[in-house]
C-alpha cells in the first residue's frame, strides 16, 4: 500500500510538486489524503447531525450548535493546515515548555476555571469556554515523546519506565482532580502508548497492568469499603452502572438504557426526523457524549456503521504514519495520537452502545465542543506533519 514510497523510489515527477504550486507551498502536497478525507467527513457529518438534531434545543436559535460547531471546524481545519506545515520535530526541542504549559493550564482551571456541574474543567473565554485538558492530550503526547527519546539512554530501563510514568501521570492526576475522569484516562492511555512505541519492555507493561488492576480494585472496592471514597458518587455509579443498567433505571443507567433504545430503534435504515428518542430529550447530552446515539437513531445501522468505518480509517492511517516517520519522535507521537484516538472512539461509542461505562469522553470530531474539535484537528495536523516530513526527508527536501 505504500504508494508514495514506490513513487519516490521510481523518482517519478510529483505532479503536485511541479504543476500545482499552491498545494506545495501550503505543504499540502504530501498530506495523507485518506486521513484528511476521514477527518473532513467526520466533522462534516458532525455539523450536519448537530444541525438536524438540535434544532429545538435552544429556543429561538435553531442553529446554535450547528453554527458554533461549524466555526470550531473551520478553526480546527486552519489549525490542522498550519500544523501540517510545521516540522513536528521542533516540538521535541520545546518539550519542557510544552510540558510546563500543559501542567500549568490544567492546574489554572482550579483557580480561574468555570465550574460546570461540580467540576472545573474550562476557562470562560469571550467566545467559548476553553477546556485546556482537551488540548492537553496532544501536548502530553508531544512532550512525553520528547522525554522518552531524550531519556532513552539515561538510567536503567526500570528507572526510565518509572520516570515516563510519573511524567504522564502527573497531568493525568491533575485532570482527574478537576474532576474529569474520562480525560485523565485518555492521558494515562496516551502515556502508555508513547512508552509502548518508545520500546518499554513488555515485562514492564505486565507489571503496570497488574498495578492498574490493583488500583481499580482499591478505588472501586477496597477504599469505599474502608470508608475512604476516592471517586465522587456519580463517578462511581457511572463507571459501574453499565454492568447492570436496569438496576439504575432512573439514574446513571437511565442514560445508557435510553441511548441503547435510541440506537436500537434506528434499526437498519434509521428513523430520520422520527427519531424521537434523541429529539425529545430521552437521551441526555445528545450533542456531546451521546451524539453517536443520535446518529444511530436517525441514520440507523447504515449511518452508524459508516461513521465507525471513518474512525477505523482514521485509526489505520494514523497507525500507518507511525511506520513512515522519518524519526523515532514522530513514531512515538503518531503512536500516542493513534492510540488516544482509538481509545476515545472505543470508549465513547462503547458507552453509547451500553458496553462501556459512562466516562464523559467526547467522540473525536463528532461531539459538539470547540476544545475537543480544535485539539483533535491539531493532533491530525501533527500526524499530517509527520507524513509530510517523512516524504520530504526521503526526497531530501525540507519544508523549512
Amino acid at each position, binding site marked *: 500500500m505504500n504508494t508514495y514510497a514506490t513513487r519516490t523510489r521510481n523518482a517519478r515527477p510529483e505532479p503536485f510538486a511541479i504543476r500545482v504550486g499552491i498545494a506545495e507551498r501550503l505543504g499540502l502536497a504530501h498530506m495523507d489524503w485518506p486521513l484528511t478525507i476521514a477527518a473532513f467527513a467526520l466533522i462534516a457529518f458532525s455539523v450536519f447531525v448537530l444541525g438536524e438534531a438540535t434544532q429545538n434545543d435552544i429556543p429561538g436559535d435553531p442553529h446554535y450548535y450547528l453554527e458554533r460547531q461549524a466555526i470550531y471546524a473551520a478553526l480546527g481545519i486552519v489549525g490542522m493546515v498550519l500544523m501540517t506545515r510545521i516540522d513536528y520535530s521542533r516540538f521535541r526541542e520545546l518539550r519542557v515548555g510544552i510540558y510546563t504549559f500543559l501542567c500549568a493550564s490544567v492546574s489554572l482551571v482550579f483557580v480561574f476555571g468555570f465550574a460546570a456541574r461540580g467540576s472545573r474543567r474550562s476557562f470562560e473565554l469571550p467566545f467559548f469556554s476553553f477546556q485546556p485538558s482537551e488540548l492537553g492530550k496532544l501536548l502530553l503526547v508531544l512532550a512525553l515523546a520528547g522525554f522518552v527519546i531524550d531519556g532513552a539512554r539515561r538510567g536503567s530501563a526500570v528507572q526510565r519506565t518509572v520516570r515516563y510514568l510519573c511524567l504522564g501521570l502527573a497531568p493525568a492526576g491533575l485532570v482527574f482532580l478537576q474532576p474529569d475522569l474520562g480525560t485523565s484516562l485518555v492521558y494515562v492511555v496516551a502515556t502508555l502508548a508513547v512508552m509502548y512505541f518508545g520500546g518499554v519492555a513488555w515485562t514492564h507493561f505486565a507489571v503496570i497492568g497488574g498495578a492498574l488492576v490493583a488500583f481499580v480494585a482499591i478505588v472501586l472496592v477496597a477504599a469505599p469499603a474502608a470508608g475512604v471514597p476516592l471517586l465522587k458518587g456519580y463517578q462511581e455509579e457511572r463507571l459501574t452502572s453499565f454492568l447492570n443498567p436496569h438496576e439504575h433505571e432512573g439514574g446513571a443507567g437511565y442514560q445508557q438504557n435510553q441511548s441503547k*433504545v*435510541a440506537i436500537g430503534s*434506528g434499526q437498519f435504515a434509521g428513523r430520520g426526523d422520527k427519531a424521537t428518542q434523541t429529539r*425529545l430529550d*430521552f437521551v441526555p447530552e445528545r450533542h456531546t457524549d451521546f451524539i453517536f446515539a443520535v446518529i*444511530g437513531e436517525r441514520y440507523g445501522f447504515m449511518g452508524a456503521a459508516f461513521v465507525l468505518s471513518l474512525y477505523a480509517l482514521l485509526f*489505520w492511517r494514523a497507525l500507518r504514519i*507511525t511506520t513512515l516517520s522519518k524519526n523515532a519522535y514522530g513514531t512515538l507521537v503518531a*503512536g500516542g495520537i493513534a492510540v488516544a484516538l482509538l481509545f476515545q472512539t472505543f470508549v465513547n461509542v462503547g458507552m453509547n452502545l451500553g458496553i462501556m461505562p459512562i466516562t464523559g469522553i467526547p467522540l473525536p470530531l463528532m461531539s459538539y465542543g470547540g476544545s475537543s474539535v480544535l485539539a483533535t484537528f491539531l493532533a491530525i495536523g501533527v500526524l499530517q506533519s509527520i507524513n509530510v516530513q517523512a516524504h520530504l526527508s526521503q526526497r531530501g527536501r525540507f519544508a523549512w
Partner: protein
Amino acid sequence: MFARNDHMPQGSRLSLRVAVVGGVGVVLFAILFFRLWNLQVLSGDKYLAEAKNNRTREFKVIAPRGDILDRTGEVLVDNRTSLALQLNPAKLPEDPAEERAELARLGQLSHMSLRKVRRAIAEGEEVAAGAPVTLRRDVGFDLVAYVEENQDEFPGVTVQRVFVRHYPDGSRAAHVLGSVGEIEEEELKEPQYKDLEPGDEIGQAGAEYAYDKFLRGQPGLTRIQVNALGQPTPGGQLVSTPPTPGDSLKLTIDGDVQTAGEAGLAARGLPGAFISMNIDNGQILAMGSNPTFDPSDLIEPTQAQVDELYRDPVLAPLVNRATEGAYPTGSIFKVITALAALENGVITPDEVVQDNGAIKVGEQTFENAGGVAHGAVELRRALQVSSDVYFYLLGLDMWETNDLQEWAHKLGIGRPAGLDLPEEGETLLPSKAWHEQFVKEGLALEDRPWSAGDNVQLATGQGDLQTNPLQMALAYAALGNGGKVVTPHVGLEVEDAAGRVVKEFDFKAQRKFPIDPGYRTAILEGLHAAAQEGEGTAASVFGGFPIDIAGKTGTAQRPGHADQSWFAALSPYPNPRIVTIATVEEGGFGAESAAPVVLDILEAIYDKQASAVSSGGGAE
C-alpha cells in the same frame, strides 16, 4: 534531520508493536460493529417498540353525542360543553397529611366536604381504577383559573372539557327522550357495549337508550408526544383518530303537538298520559306522561331531586304512563267488544237491544253509569250514548267462548306493543285460561271459576283488565286502518353531522287481519256520533270542533281511586289518519278531563295542517 539521541526502535520490533496495536484496533472495532449490528438489526424491533412507548401518551377524546330532533328538525336534545374538575388519584401526594390537605382544599373549592371528596374518589376507583375521577361538573371559569394558577397546590387535578346533554325545553318529551348516564359495570358485559370503557356515557332510557348506537359516536384517540419528563412537546400531537360525533336522531314526534298535549295534560293537574299516533305507519306524533321531569336533573341530581324522581311510588315522575301504565280503560274498550261481537256474528250493526238501565247476571246486577235507561239501542246509538247494558249483553253472549279475548289479543291488548323504546309495562287481558291459572297459583282473592260477570266486566273495559294508552292506540289504529296492527315507534331517521340521512327506519306492520268494512263503518259512525252529535258523550267537548272525528269516552273504575277519565279519538272522520288517546287518573268522566286533552292535541295537529296548507298555497 535526526537528533543526536534520536534512535529508531529496530524495524522488526516496531513492526511487531504496530501490528499488536493494529490487531487490538481491529478487535475493538469488530466489537463495536458487532454490538451495533446486534442492537440495530437483530433487536431493532424491540427497541423501536420501546422508543415508541417512551414518547407517547394516549388520551381518549370523547365524541359528542348526536342531537335528537323532532320530525320538523327542531332540536329536542343537544350538547353543551361543560368544564369538569377531575382528579387523578394516582398523582395525589404520597404523604397522607399532604394528601388530606389537598383534598380539603379541593373540597373547599368545589363545595364538597372532605368525606364527600373521598367518597367520590372511592366510587370512581371502583368503577374504573386508575382513571381520573370527575369530582364536579359545570365548574366555573374562575375556579378553573384558580386551579391552573395554583397547580403546585393541586397535583393530579385537571380540568376537562366534557359534553353534557342539554335540553332546551326542559321537560318537554322527557319520557320519549330518556336520559344518558355513565355505563354501569353490568352493562359493560353486554355485547352492544363491547367497545366501551368505564366512565363512558350511554343512553339509559327512552330514545337515548333505544338509539344509543347511532347517537353515541366514536371516541377519538389522541396520542400526545411527550418528552423525557412526560411533558407534551410543542407540536407533538400525533393525530391518530379524531372523534366521530354521534349521528342525529330525528323522531316522529311533532314538537308542537307534543307541547300542546303536555300543556293540556298539565292543565288537569293530575297524573295521566296521552299518545297520538299515525294509524297507517305507527309513527308516534306525541306521547307524554304527567308528572314529568327535567332530564337535566338526572345528570347530577341533588338529594332532593333523587327523592322526588326515584322515591315517590305514587307520582313516579320517571314512569311513562302512556306505555308503562296499567289501567282499566272503561268504555273506550267497547269498540273492541263491538268488533269482536260483529265479526263473530253475535250481533249485527242494526240489531236493536233493549237497554233498561241494568242487567242481572247470576247473582250480580250490572248497571249503566248513573243508572240511566237508554231504551232501544242499536250499535251506533249504543256507542254514541255509551250504553253499558248493550255491551254487557255482548260480553255475556261471548263469555263461554274466547271470542272477545281473541279479538282483543289480535288488536294488541295485553301483549307487548313492539314499541321501539325500552319502556313498556306489564299489562293483562283477563281470560278464562288466565283466571284458572291465577286461581291455581293461589293469587286470586276468592277461589271461584271464570264467570260470565268477568267477561261482562271486560266487555266494558273493567274488571281485571290492565292496559295502557299505547295498546289502546294500537287497537283503535287497527280499527281505523282496516285490520293492520302497526309497530308504534318514535325513531324516524338518522342523520349524520352534515344533515344527510344515513338511515331511515322502516317499521313494518306487525300483523294484518280482515275487518269487515261494513262493521268498521258502523263502529266509526257510532264513534263520530259519540264525539260530535247531539247526545254524544263527548259532544260537549268536540261539538264545535271544525274537523270531523270519531271518538269514545271512557270512565274507568279503579279500586281505591276516583274514576279515571279516558278518551280515544280517530281523526279525521270518516277516513282517519291519526289516533289520539288520553287518560287522566282520577279525572272523572271521559268528557270531563281526558277529552279536553285530546281536543288540545287535535287542535294543534289540525291548526298546524291548516296553516301548512294555507302557507303552502300562498307560496304557489
